[in-house]
């Protein structure tokens, strides 16, 4: 039902007009589709991209590896070096081929050294690494480190030298003893071109620890101050019997590559290895008019923003405004805690009032003042429906004359939006919890009644839709907080109110008791309402997206990309 579900990785390639026609033929006539609107909306072959959707492509790890290999082959062929060497150089320069070529032409040796391929001082017998001052040049990092020993004014020389030599005995009586584990039963040793020899088991422990614990793919030699970096063939040799770590190492290489490419983003969901390519959303200008919400090919639930670090759908609001709003919420988290509590002060007599039910129409026990729990405003101004209170009454802040009441008004204004934002978030959680219970009941009904599995899916669809729309609603409050007052904002809030009302109605339907006698009617009602809610959501998303494209939205604060 979500527009995002429509993107499976195969579908993406078919977004051209010819395919559109074919798809329509496959599905059947338009009137047929209307007969079963839910199925229509779920149809994965429906290729039309909506105005609030961006063009993107999902790539598997394998796909990304192909891109990497192409770059490595390219560098390998023009420099005439091994693939592994080209790979290290590219990783060192963050996959910037042009810059690498330039630097390599300028000073190939410097590039080879910086990429950990060769050492400044190539004396292989320098087993007691850390003694050569020349090898410290690459260490731009700071802090008291190994090298600081060398610059110590009066180090207790005798002790230090002796001890370090004791601990790194490369060969004792012709027999190799690994200077790390001192296990003389180890027979297999490995070393890179620096000839720092260690037993295979220590190398394995070291590489495994780097890859698994530190998520590090840039692995330097174990010897102290040795700047050589392990090329792929070496890692592969060390991990010959440890496929899991080798796989993880390759995943880290892909992550590094993806991190260096502005048009690629790694799926932020845990243990997912997919990447999304979204070239249209790279520029700052595009981010001021579109919200690049993408879904990776692994799961429709892996939805994230390509333009910022929000790991969920923040449509309809653009990244810059979403970021400001989240920052504002963080900064005011103390105030937010107050809002979440169940007690408030009566705005007339300041006595404490506790909320113990779901209804928002409150009456102060002491002074009989009637007000709305959500906005604390007088109930009389709310008319018959509390949904009117999605709109913040700006009169109060205009009237505020002195600094104190101005600051109070600005806090109240923020709380108006925050309260609703938090309310939808809370309701989302409650819906999920509630649905878990409903689902169980539905499963039972499947057994006891003649309803099929397909027929009981309407609840799941409705809950998914409610959650999706509450997400939209949350962000509309984040957006409205920053929208300049005027006709445009009012229209925005009309759409917001209509969606909110529809969502609340659907929520109520979902929460109504289910039993086999009413299930058919309920199914019809829920299905119809779900379709309606979905339409209202699309209206909000579409109109807001259009507004961004024709620069209709005006902000009450400076927004990145707007002057």
């Amino acid at each position, binding site marked *: 039902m979500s527009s995002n579900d429509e993107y499976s990785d195969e579908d993406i390639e078919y977004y051209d007009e010819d395919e559109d026609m074919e798809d329509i033929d496959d599905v059947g006539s338009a009137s047929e589709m209307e007969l079963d609107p839910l199925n229509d909306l779920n149809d994965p072959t429906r290729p039309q991209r909506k105005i609030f959707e961006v063009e993107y492509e999902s790539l598997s790890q394998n796909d990304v590896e192909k891109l990497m290999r192409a770059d490595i082959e390219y560098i390998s062929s023009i420099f005439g070096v091994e693939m592994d060497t080209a790979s290290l150089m590219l990783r060192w320069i963050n996959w910037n081929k042009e810059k690498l070529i330039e630097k390599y032409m300028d000073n190939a040796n410097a590039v080879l050294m910086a990429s950990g391929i060769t050492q400044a001082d190539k004396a292989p017998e320098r087993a007691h*690494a*850390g003694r050569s001052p020349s090898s410290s040049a690459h*260490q731009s*990092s*700071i*802090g*008291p*480190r*190994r*090298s*600081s*020993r060398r*610059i*110590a*004014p*009066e*180090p*207790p020389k*005798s*002790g*230090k030298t*002796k*001890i*370090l030599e*004791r*601990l*790194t005995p490369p060969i004792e009586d012709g027999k190799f003893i690994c*200077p*790390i*584990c*001192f*296990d003389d039963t180890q027979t297999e040793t490995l070393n890179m071109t620096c000839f720092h020899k*260690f037993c295979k*088991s*220590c190398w394995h*422990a*070291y590489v495994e*620890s780097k890859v698994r*614990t530190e998520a590090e793919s840039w692995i330097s030699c*174990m*010897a*102290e*101050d040795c700047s050589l970096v392990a090329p792929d063939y070496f890692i592969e040799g060390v991990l010959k019997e440890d496929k899991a770590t080798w796989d993880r190492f390759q995943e880290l290489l892909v992550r590094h590559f993806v991190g260096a490419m502005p048009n690629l983003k790694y799926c932020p969901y845990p243990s997912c290895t997919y990447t999304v390519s979204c070239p249209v959303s790279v520029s700052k200008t595009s981010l001021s008019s579109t919200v690049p919400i993408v879904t990776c090919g692994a799961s429709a639930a892996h939805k994230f923003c390509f333009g910022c670090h929000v790991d969920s759908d923040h449509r309809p609001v653009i990244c810059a405004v979403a970021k400001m709003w989240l920052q504002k919420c963080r900064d005011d988290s103390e105030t937010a805690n107050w809002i979440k509590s169940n007690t408030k002060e009566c705005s007339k007599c300041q006595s404490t009032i506790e909320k113990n039910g779901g209804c928002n129409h409150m009456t102060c026990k002491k002074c009989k003042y009637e007000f709305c729990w959500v906005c604390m405003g007088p109930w009389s101004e709310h008319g018959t429906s509390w949904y009117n209170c999605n709109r913040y009454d700006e009169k109060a802040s205009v009237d505020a004359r002195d600094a104190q009441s101005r600051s109070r008004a600005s806090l109240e204004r923020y709380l108006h939006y925050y309260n609703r934002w938090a309310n939808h978030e809370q309701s989302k959680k409650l819906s999920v919890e509630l649905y878990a219970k409903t689902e169980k009941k539905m499963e039972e009904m499947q057994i006891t009644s003649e309803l099929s599995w397909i027929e009981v899916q309407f609840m799941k669809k409705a809950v998914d839709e409610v959650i999706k729309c509450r997400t939209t609603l949350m962000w509309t409050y984040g957006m409205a907080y920053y929208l300049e007052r005027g006709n445009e904002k009012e229209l925005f809030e009309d759409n917001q109110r209509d969606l909110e009302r529809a969502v609340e109605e659907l929520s109520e339907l979902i929460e109504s008791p289910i039993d086999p006698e009413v299930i058919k009617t309920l199914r019809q009602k829920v299905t119809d309402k779900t379709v309606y809610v979905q339409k209202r959501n699309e209206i909000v998303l579409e109109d807001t997206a259009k507004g961004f494209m024709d620069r209709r939205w005006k902000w009450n604060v400076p927004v990145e990309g707007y002057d």
Partner: protein
Amino acid sequence: MSVSTRRLQKELTDIQKQGTPVGIKLLNADDFQTWHLSLEVLGDTVYQGEVFALKFRFDSSYPISSPAVQFVVDDTWKAPVHPHVYSNGHICASILGNEWSPVLSVISVCVTLQSMLASCKKKELPPGNDRYVKNAPENPKKTRFEYHDDNV
């Protein structure tokens, strides 16, 4: 025998046979989990006459990953006042973090810290000491230090 035990056994035998560098003494090494060593900076330094105690904690990943090292702070011992040593004894030193090498040892860590103290010209607490100490994890290895400048 595990690698860490064998390795620590070897380091201990070496210390017992060949002694420790000047200014460094083994206080106790009763097991292969925790060792204590005392540290003194010799010569003309800002820490003249002061003795400090270092606590080393090892897990089974030693020496592949670094030991947890900190200055002891209790009724007997105080941490040195140094721009890379927090008042709770935690040390911001890259040798204990990203520049750790498995060929380093307990003694080489002591020697490095000794020279870190020896080269200090002015006793100063690290910037943000109070905030760090307030929020610091018990084990300094859980802290991700940004390594500060080396010019102290």
